């Protein structure tokens, strides 16, 4: 079972490596979206410092949605997804592996890039740590919940926009907790509570999402 999981993660990472531009585009989107806000709102430093956590988190959400179609669509199109449905490992394990690979490629880099954006917004350097930690805990949840929606909308005409509509309401708690952790820390109140809640969301998502994703994939593949 672990063998299969490792094989799938390795496969997806290898595929991402050979299609580097696809991955890079989603990450570039993250930076571009974050850069739009000052242009729209004005570059007053105090304002930017105040909205930085929220903006970075919203940008992370949007970037995550953009890359979600990549989890299953390509495999669905060339028939390899069916083979995974017929694999020797439980489907929950298989989809968990795919989601992990997706997060490694599309979510984890956001954690690394976020400090650059924080720099643009002149966020207090002491907050970088908690910002990175909130993203580290939150982006896997985004991948897991997003994968459910991606599995449900597999092959549909509405495609990416429908996926966004489905998933954004479900993302709200992660957004609130993630941005909230940094804002609490900025206010001197410590964001540990929110980080713990994020961790709880992550544990719950890891426990239940794979089965929802598996059920959705079976439904979409009939």
């Amino acid at each position, binding site marked *: 079972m672990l063998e299969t999981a490792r094989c799938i993660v390795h*496969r997806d990472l290898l595929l991402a490596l050979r299609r580097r531009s696809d991955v890079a585009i989603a990450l570039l989107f993250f930076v571009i979206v974050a850069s739009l806000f000052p242009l729209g709102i004005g570059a007053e430093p105090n304002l930017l410092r105040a909205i930085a956590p929220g903006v970075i988190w919203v940008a992370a959400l949007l970037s995550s949605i953009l890359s979600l179609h990549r989890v299953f669509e390509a495999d669905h199109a060339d*028939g*390899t997804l069916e083979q995974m449905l017929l694999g020797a490992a439980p*489907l929950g394990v298989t989809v968990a592996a795919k989601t992990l690979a997706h997060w490694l490629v599309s979510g984890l880099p956001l954690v690394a890039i976020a400090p650059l954006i924080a720099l643009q917004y002149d966020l207090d350097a002491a907050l970088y740590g908690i910002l990175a930690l909130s993203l580290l805990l939150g982006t896997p949840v985004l991948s897991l919940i997003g994968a459910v929606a991606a599995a449900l909308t597999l092959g549909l005409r509405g495609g990416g926009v429908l996926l966004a509509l489905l998933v954004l309401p479900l993302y709200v708690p992660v957004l609130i907790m993630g941005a909230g952790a940094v804002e609490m820390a900025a206010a001197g109140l410590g964001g540990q509570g929110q980080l713990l809640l994020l961790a709880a969301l992550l544990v719950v998502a890891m426990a239940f999402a794979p089965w929802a994703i598996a059920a959705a994939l079976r439904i979409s593949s009939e």
Partner: protein
Amino acid sequence: MLEATGLECQRGGRVLFRALSLALAPGDVLRLAGANGSGKTSLLRILCGLLEPAAGEVTWQGLSIASLREEYSKNVLYLGHAAAVKEDLTAAENLRISTRIAGVSTTGKSILEALDRYGVPKGLVRRMSQGQRRRAALARLALSASVPVWLLDEPFTALDKSASALTEELVAAHAKAGGMVAYTTHHAANISDRKVIQLDA
């Protein structure tokens, strides 16, 4: 022993077939015949568990495949319409991954041998023709002697004479060794069909 009883299939509001029963015993080669749209692919997908029938059930060794899930999948090789190969990988990488996912153990040597038998070129699948991709997909047959049930949906599509002959040879050998094969085809295949099911009677 793969058995199906009272299968009914509905697609797009139409009933494709109902009250269909079949049995595949070791050594059986079953051809599913019928015009386009008669439900051949749907029947194969029901047999491998990808599609739920509107009525009836499929059992493997007496147990329903819906309850067996991957216990049953381990015993099935399903090759559908799509080649099921990743464009951005080489044929060898594809084979290694697909056999690993299916739980079939292989060695680097056996993979290269299988690809050689089918004459699959080296390099990324993206650079291969349709026929070569099909060969790359079918090379799995040469590695799946240990998988009892083979469900093949139009395996001879896009194949030239030599690849078709090799496929027929592998299917016959598998049946002789006690495996079970069910396939659909529009070409005249040179396999001694012990059984034929006509789907648009």
